[in-house]
């Protein structure tokens, strides 16, 4: 295990721990798209909703699923209420709703350390079960709403990915059943700008799908992982204005061209695997395509041929995980990546311009994609935290907006890690270094 030569520039400081009353495994956490809430999927068949302001348990959603809740996803873009989808090992997905019009009073009224039981006294305050989505033959492993809220994708051990469309409240129609994978489908994720869906599988591949003349079809297959791919997540929208590319002064022509390439490619994709790697993928921009928007206006007969996308592996992140990596997450604010898994570590990676040898790359090697021969950027680990959940495995890690009293500006973020100990831990990334004693 080689450690980075340079000292790590940042540390993860514990901010709070969200502890459920039972410590059975918690699988995944989903921060609410606009409220300071996080929903957690637990193996004790419940979903717990915590406040990210007070770090207390607000709601315990029970009675819906007969087996572990594996995955939770908030519907984006809903006003006045919160809509939560839950996917379970019982092969069903549930839709839950809660009126949020009085949410502000709610937060202040609640006692710290409330155990959720008080909810039962006031029914209208609770998450109401609203409908169930049946169809998968075995455990649902992941589900995800599209950014517009129009589609919900679910995936299962039955090797299929389903896309549901909510025609009106609680009326869901199955619009696609995608059976491209040869094994359990572990994770589904939507592109932030387009109706483009990615799925990761036990068959070691990642597949991407798009709608083509009313049919959802596979448009790309990513093969480089050597083992089960556990998680897939798209980069945020417009990140070149927020990440290391934002500082445009003093760039070389080559670097400027790279930023232009990234902007034409659109958000990239991160995947992580049992093979202990995190990989970054980028879509090759189309010849002559101004933007990567949908192929509107092109006759469908041509579109069918042109719909395939070319995704290339752009980078393998520094390999410092020793066991399966279960989760990887992009910060939408900074472009940093967090990863976590079976070895109990949380790693934070940063992308930066690579210092080029002065006599190195000529400006004229446009024949070879620069990403393959000599990458212009590199990823470095900036923070490494051992035993984030004591000796337990970490099933999920993600970024969320910071909402507690310590928040200094709107872009402040926290990192949420979810473990086999049942806990969700809240971390703050801070500058500073721990010099490892040797």
């Amino acid at each position, binding site marked *: 295990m080689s450690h980075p030569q340079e000292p790590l520039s940042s540390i993860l400081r514990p901010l709070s721990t969200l502890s459920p009353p039972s410590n059975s*495994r918690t699988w995944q956490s989903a921060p609410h798209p606009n409220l300071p809430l996080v929903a957690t999927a637990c193996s004790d068949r419940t979903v717990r909703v915590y406040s990210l302001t007070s770090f207390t348990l607000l709601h315990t959603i029970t009675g819906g699923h007969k087996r572990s809740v594996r995955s939770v996803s908030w519907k984006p873009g809903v006003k006045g209420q919160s809509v939560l989808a839950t996917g379970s090992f019982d092969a069903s997905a549930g839709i839950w709703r809660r009126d949020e019009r009085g949410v502000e009073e709610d937060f202040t009224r609640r006692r710290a350390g409330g155990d959720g039981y008080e909810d039962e006294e006031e029914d209208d305050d609770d998450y109401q079960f609203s409908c169930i989505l049946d169809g998968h033959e075995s455990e649902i492993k992941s589900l995800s709403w599209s950014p517009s809220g129009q589609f919900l994708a679910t995936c299962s051990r039955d090797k299929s990915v389903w896309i549901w469309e909510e025609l009106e409240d609680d009326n869901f129609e199955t619009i696609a059943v995608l059976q491209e994978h040869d094994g359990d489908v572990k994770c589904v994720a939507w592109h932030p700008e387009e109706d483009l869906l990615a799925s990761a599988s036990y068959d070691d591949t990642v597949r991407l799908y798009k709608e083509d003349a009313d049919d959802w079809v596979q448009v790309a297959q990513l093969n480089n992982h050597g083992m089960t791919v556990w998680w897939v997540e798209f980069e945020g929208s417009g990140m070149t204005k927020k990440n290391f590319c934002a500082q445009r002064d003093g760039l070389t022509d080559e670097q400027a061209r790279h930023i232009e390439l990234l902007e034409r490619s659109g958000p990239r994709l991160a995947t992580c695997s049992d093979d202990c790697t995190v990989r970054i993928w980028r879509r090759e921009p189309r010849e002559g395509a101004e933007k990567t928007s949908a192929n509107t206006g092109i006759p469908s007969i041509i579109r069918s041929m042109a719909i395939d996308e070319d995704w290339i592996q752009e980078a393998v992140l520094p390999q410092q995980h020793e*066991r399966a990596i*279960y989760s990887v997450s992009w910060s939408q604010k900074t472009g940093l990546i967090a990863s976590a898994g079976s070895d109990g570590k949380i790693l934070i990676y940063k992308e930066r311009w690579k210092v080029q040898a002065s006599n190195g790359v000529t400006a004229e090697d446009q024949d070879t994609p620069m990403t393959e021969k000599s990458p212009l950027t590199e990823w470095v680990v900036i923070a490494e935290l051992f*035993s984030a959940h004591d*000796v337990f495995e970490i099933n999920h890690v993600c970024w969320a907006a910071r909402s507690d009293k310590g928040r200094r500006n709107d872009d402040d973020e926290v990192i949420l890690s979810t473990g086999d100990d049942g806990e969700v831990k809240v971390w703050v990334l801070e500058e500073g270094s721990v010099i*490892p004693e040797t």
Partner: protein
Amino acid sequence: MDLDKDNANPTILNPSDLPSRHRESAVKKREDGGTGLFHDLIPQYTYLSDPFEQPVSESDSDDDSVEDIDEQEIYDLISSISDPEHPLSLGSLAVVNLPDIHILPPTSPYSSISTVLVEVTPTITHCSLATVIGLGVRVRLEQALPPRFRIDVRIKKGTHSTDEAVNKQLGDKERVAAALENGTLMGVLRKMLSTCE
């Protein structure tokens, strides 16, 4: 579940030939159910006594004693599991063997996570129950060992026709978790593990 007897006449080892410490059984059952170090942390499991009571007269630091679980102890935990087809233990059928148990220490001074690797040898190459046996071994060790151990159970290379597929299943935490919520399978596992106490 109707179990076909794939191997009606397996080789059976004499109990006295099985590996042991030649002394009082190493695995002491804890009558009080207490587990020392980890008991307060995670009360729902029943762990082995972890800082395995050895003379610790010189050292008052319990940090050093956590490596005291050895291969023989792992063997003792899993050799008594019953085979799902035969009324015999995995030890006497030589499905689990002491030389095929490896304990790997933490790879970094900052980590306290050790790995237990167990390679099981199914009684014949196409034994349809290899996955169930492997699952039984994994579940037994997950229940008995402290959570700082990661447990990797594999089919010994070359002993089984579909060993890669079985290994992949046994290594998949999510599949294992889902399997343990399956009542039929749990019934089979409970029966296999009933001879362990």
